[in-house]
């Protein structure tokens, strides 16, 4: 009974926060409400027994996205008034949303209560996957091709952002927030290491650990620390790329290890080595994710000819 009350309250709060965030007139209020929404969303995932998602949502949805929105706001300066949208113009999107929503609700009612055949299959094959946590097994063994491409999606998001990155803002940080961020840093590194290691047997893993590290790095970056953490630094580039590189090279090595079998299978880990391969991939992926997410949030004009400013001012610097 009390759980039901909690769930109803959670759902009501989620809806109220979402509405308030969309409808609030001041952008800074909207962002704060959105962060609160992200935190409650993480709690909702936890209630749905999906702790992996809850961790990711708390780190990305509430933490990094919030920081990203605030940095964008700070750079925006004086906002021009948004144009007034007439009621007729609002009608069509509202109608579309209503129709889709009711159709979706009707469809959701028809979804069978029993889960499909896959969860049972995952548990059955778990022993040969090299890890004991089913989510990690799916991500890094059963459907590792998806994860590889997802890492690439993240890298691409960064490449796209670097094209349009703004010029750095000269701002001083408060002494208090600077020392606080320095205090936090070792704790976050420790925590990220634990989350990464825990991923093999319980909720956690590369993505959550990377997001945690990135959160710590973003706080430091916003306080004008970690000046070396920029795209122009070749080591930063190397580790941002190494997550994917190690993944592919491990896959190639495993492919060659299957040797001269008639038809080697792509991305198949040898069962006795699977644990170590997955740990290796996850370690490099954590670093890559952390660097990529940090640079995504506090992207600054790189000195490479990738960016707009250099294009506009220096022109033909592409040789």
């Amino acid at each position, binding site marked *: 009974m009390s759980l039901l009350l909690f769930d109803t309250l959670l759902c009501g709060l989620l809806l109220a926060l979402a509405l308030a965030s969309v409808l609030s007139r001041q952008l800074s209020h909207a962002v704060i409400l959105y962060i609160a929404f992200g935190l409650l969303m993480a709690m909702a995932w936890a209630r749905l027994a999906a702790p992996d998602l809850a961790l990711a949502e708390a780190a990305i949805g509430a933490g990094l996205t919030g920081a990203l929105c605030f940095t964008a706001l700070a750079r925006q300066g004086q906002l021009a008034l948004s144009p007034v949208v007439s009621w007729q113009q609002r009608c069509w999107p509202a109608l579309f949303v209503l129709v889709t929503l009711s*159709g*979706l609700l009707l469809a959701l009612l028809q979804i069978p209560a029993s889960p499909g055949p896959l969860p049972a299959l995952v548990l059955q094959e778990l022993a040969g996957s090299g890890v004991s946590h089913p989510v990690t097994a799916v991500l890094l063994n059963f459907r590792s091709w*998806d994860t590889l*491409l997802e890492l*690439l999606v993240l890298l691409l*998001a960064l490449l*796209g952002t670097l*094209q349009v990155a703004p010029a750095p803002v000269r701002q001083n940080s408060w002494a208090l927030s600077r020392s606080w961020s320095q205090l936090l840093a070792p704790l976050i590194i420790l925590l990220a290491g634990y989350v990464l290691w825990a991923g093999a047997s319980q909720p956690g893993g590369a993505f959550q650990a990377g997001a945690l590290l990135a959160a710590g790095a973003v706080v430091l970056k916003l306080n004008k620390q970690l000046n070396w953490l920029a795209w122009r630094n*070749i080591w930063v580039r190397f580790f941002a790329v190494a997550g994917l590189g190690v993944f*592919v090279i491990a896959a190639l090595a495993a492919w060659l290890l299957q040797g001269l079998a008639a038809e080697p299978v792509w991305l198949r880990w040898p069962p006795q080595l699977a644990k170590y391969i997955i740990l290796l991939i996850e370690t490099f992926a954590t670093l890559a994710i952390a660097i990529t997410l940090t640079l995504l949030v506090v992207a600054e004009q790189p000195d490479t000819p990738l960016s707009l400013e250099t294009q506009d001012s220096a022109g033909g610097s592409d040789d």
Partner: protein
Amino acid sequence: MMILLLVLPLLSALLMLLWPRIAPLLALFSAAASSLLALQLLLQVAEQGTRYWLLAGWPSGLAIAWQADTLSCLLILLSTVLQLLVGLYAFATRSRDKLSQGFWPLSTLLQLSLTALWLSRDLFNLYVCLELLGLVAVALVSLSGRKAIKPAFNYLLLSLFGSLCYLLGVVLLYGAYGLLDIAGLASQWQAGWLSNSALLLMSLGLMLKAAIWPLHAWLPAAHAAAPAPVSALLSALVVKGPLFILCLLWLQLASTSQAQAMAPLFAAAGLAALLFGGWSALRTPFAKNLVAYSTVAQLGYATLALGLMLTFDQPLIFAALWLFVLAHALAKAACFLAIGEMSATLGGKRLTILKGASQTMPLAMFAFAVAGGSLIGLPPSGGFLAKWALLQGLWLQGEQLFWPLALVFATLLSAAYVFRVVVLAFDRADPVAPDFAPQLVPQWLALLPALAVWAMALFSEPLLLLLRLEAL
């Protein structure tokens, strides 16, 4: 060996990010090697039949399924070859057009994401490929600098909305059947409210991404804002990815009743795209927008063919659909490169700069006219082959008068906008003087895909045979 088609572009893109200096050469090398590998794969599949893979060696359902049939292999070959041609053009003009270094890794990753998409037969993996494709395309558009930020941003938002719609549909299907691979889903498929709404949501997202009328409004701005080599890649390849998934959904998953119900909508959307796209191409004052609107119109042929295929279930129409895609990809790459070359040399974006271009830049103009011939469907080009297959498929059904007439009208419209450019180019009284001596190599490179689309006619019989087999 086939895995190298994916590993080679990925590793070379990563190396390009580390050492931007070697990027152009590495990109060209990877595209050339991939083209050879793709050709080898096509020959192998044509000889030995379709190949299937279950990734990571797990049982079906748990693993991601790949399938290389002749259609996938043809599309892989098309992407790699166009990648190579456009890469060569970009290399030849890189110092003149101040092409950003970002082009090389991004275009190589574009090739990777397309290859992954053509191979995949798993709904969620297809979503990841779509997402990759969308992000690469947006990043490529924003290479143009400040003026491209607004179209690129609109493209990003619409593309994300499309991806989310598709993902929602995948979630519904996973909830209903607990499966993600297409073959498994097709065997358990039941027509019902759930599968209807999933199909509709996914189609909405895919149509938005494929710029199928009436969801095409973002395309002309985005494609016209990008640098010439990027527009060529976007128009020729990127919009075809979502179209491929749309065909997979409706031809392999949907039940007959669902397909029959949707068919008239696709056919009508295709016809409307042909008419409105053609009309806008006839009216626009900008050269690149003309070519971009022509993409909207030409995608109409593919949509129309999809609608007719769902109605009549005729293998010839299926072959026509993919012939349209192949012919359009080659012709459009040639058009964008030729127009890009002429606007760079003659200096300007408006169509009027092409005045007298047949005299000042005969080679580029010839490339545009030859490619335009295929867009119109003049024999013996690839466009003609596709149109002929479509008409033949319709005739085999008998008593069809409306669709052939509509096709004739659409052909006249496309002839009108191609001739609009050609007539202007032959107005030799007062030609626009080039800003600098026209360069020969880029013009030849623009001509190559145009010649390739006419060469398609030479291979018409094997092409038709391969594609017809795929429909059964």
